[in-house]
């Protein structure tokens, strides 16, 4: 059996190898890394806490706007922007979590939906700050850490995004492997019992909300910096749904689910849009349906089931 440590190493190796394998697709790889980070942050809520939300784009978007505005008005250094984006989203996560976590299930989904709409409308109205419907323009990023300027080939962008994803993945693993992370799984499976073994459920869930929001904010900040632009639909309901689809595709509540689902989704989107610019949405939908039917727990659940069957056959 392959150990978790080896698979973690494989993930990092794949990130490092991508530019060698597909040097012409660095922009696509950057997009994959950013969305993988966003799906990863959502997994903490959906997969581990068992809280389904359709509001994750709010955190991504606020992170993007915060980093973008910071770059335009204060300092164009990307790493500082990441911190600003993460903190802004974490703050929103703290506020939204305190309100949203009073509810569960369908009510929570509706409230999370409302959160995105509120944030989006706020961004739309505050055009003097955010650019409104035209998007936030005029971002000119400085070199990363003052030494690596973004270049046209996308090599620096990719390396930057991949490194941020790698670090975030390690943070994510540290969280889910900790007792805190195990207690989130306990809350998902039996909230009452978790209470009865001394866990302040509300506090734990709020903490998970803040961590998740912060990671999504970092992803948003990356997006703003790499694109040097923030579109209003970065805080859209549609984007929230897309993140959820990527996660479910890869497998929610599974260590590598987001890392498999998001790149696959981006790849299929890109490939189909090139092959059939008219009907590509249809094909994408059909493929998603097929995957959901054939691998109900997500692709990573399917592969680990396959590995288990093969081991049993060998034994």
């Amino acid at each position, binding site marked *: 059996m392959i150990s978790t440590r080896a698979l973690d190493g494989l993930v990092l190796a794949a990130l490092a190898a991508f530019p060698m394998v597909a040097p012409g697709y660095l922009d696509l790889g950057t997009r994959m890394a950013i969305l993988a980070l966003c799906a990863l942050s959502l997994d903490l809520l959906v997969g581990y806490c068992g809280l389904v939300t359709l509001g994750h784009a709010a955190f991504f978007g606020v992170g993007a706007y915060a980093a973008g505005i910071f770059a335009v008005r204060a300092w164009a250094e990307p790493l500082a922007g990441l911190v600003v984006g993460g903190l802004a989203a974490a703050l929103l996560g703290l506020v939204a979590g305190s309100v949203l976590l009073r509810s569960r299930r369908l009510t929570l989904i509706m409230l999370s939906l409302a959160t995105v709409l509120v944030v989006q409308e706020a961004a739309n109205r505050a055009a003097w700050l955010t650019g409104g419907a035209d998007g936030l323009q005029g971002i000119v990023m400085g070199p990363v850490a003052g030494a690596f300027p973004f270049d046209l080939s996308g090599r620096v962008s990719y390396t930057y995004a991949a490194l941020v994803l790698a670090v975030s993945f390690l943070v994510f693993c540290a969280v889910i492997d900790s*007792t805190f992370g*195990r*207690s989130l*799984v*306990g809350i998902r*499976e*039996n909230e*009452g*019992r*978790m*209470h*009865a*073994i*001394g*866990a*302040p*459920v509300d506090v734990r869930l709020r903490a998970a909300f803040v961590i998740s929001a912060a990671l999504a904010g970092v992803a948003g900040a990356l997006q703003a910096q790499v694109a040097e632009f923030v579109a209003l639909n970065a805080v859209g309901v549609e984007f929230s749904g897309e993140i959820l689809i990527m996660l479910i595709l890869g497998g929610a509540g599974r260590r590598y689910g987001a890392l498999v689902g998001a790149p696959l989704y981006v790849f299929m989107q890109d490939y189909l849009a090139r092959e059939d610019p008219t009907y590509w949405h249809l094909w994408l939908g059909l493929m998603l349906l097929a995957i959901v039917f054939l691998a109900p727990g997500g692709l990573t659940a399917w592969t680990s089931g396959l590995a288990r069957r093969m081991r049993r056959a060998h034994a």
Partner: protein
Amino acid sequence: MAETFPLPSTQRAAEAPILELAGVTAGYGATVVLEDIGVALPAGSALAVLGRNGTGKTTLMRTIVGQADLHRGHVRFDGLDMASEPCWRRTRLGVGYVPQDRDIFPSLTVLENMTVGARPGRWDTDRLFGLFPPLANRRRHFGNQLSGGEQQMLAIARALALQPRLLLLDEPFEGLAPALVETLLRVFAELRRSGLSIVLAEQHARLALGMTDEAIALVRGRIALEAASHALLDAPGRLDDVLTVQQTVTTPKLQE
């Protein structure tokens, strides 16, 4: 009980009850399950809660731990009024609860189930595996891969990992093979030796009376009988009246 164990809070009078229920009326929402319950459990002793199905044994447990609604009366733990304490705080104060349906987390391993709420103290992982050797062999198995008996052991181990001073056991022997009942009886004796106070809800009166100091029997949410366990063992007839002929006793109250 003669075997008392030095507990951090036994500065006060030796007879100060670790658990005290006074005039407790409790239930779920507007539904009343328990009425006018009064219990005082001295530290280090064990209380049997007897009664047939649906007489309120589980609700009594849940009232103590804070998962049922207390309508009237007081629940005091170690002198502290628990009414306003949420469930998780009560647990941290030292009330361990092993529910009847065990509630093992299926996608956590045996070890993770034990450590997810664990706090440092006497009952560390090594000692718990020593208490339940079968669990040690299965520490990497997931909660949903365990037999009923293993789940019961794990539920008790998980509660002990919280370092409780009072342990609530809700029908721990239900559905277990005789050999496992033997194992649990040995564990129970060891827990008592350690000075842990215990409330044991049980339908099998003989089994429960043999392990406890005091007993109460519930009928329709009220205490119908209260006596020393050994006295009831010596005079089983007294219990039969309460546990089996209760229809005639309670019929007049049906219209209440």
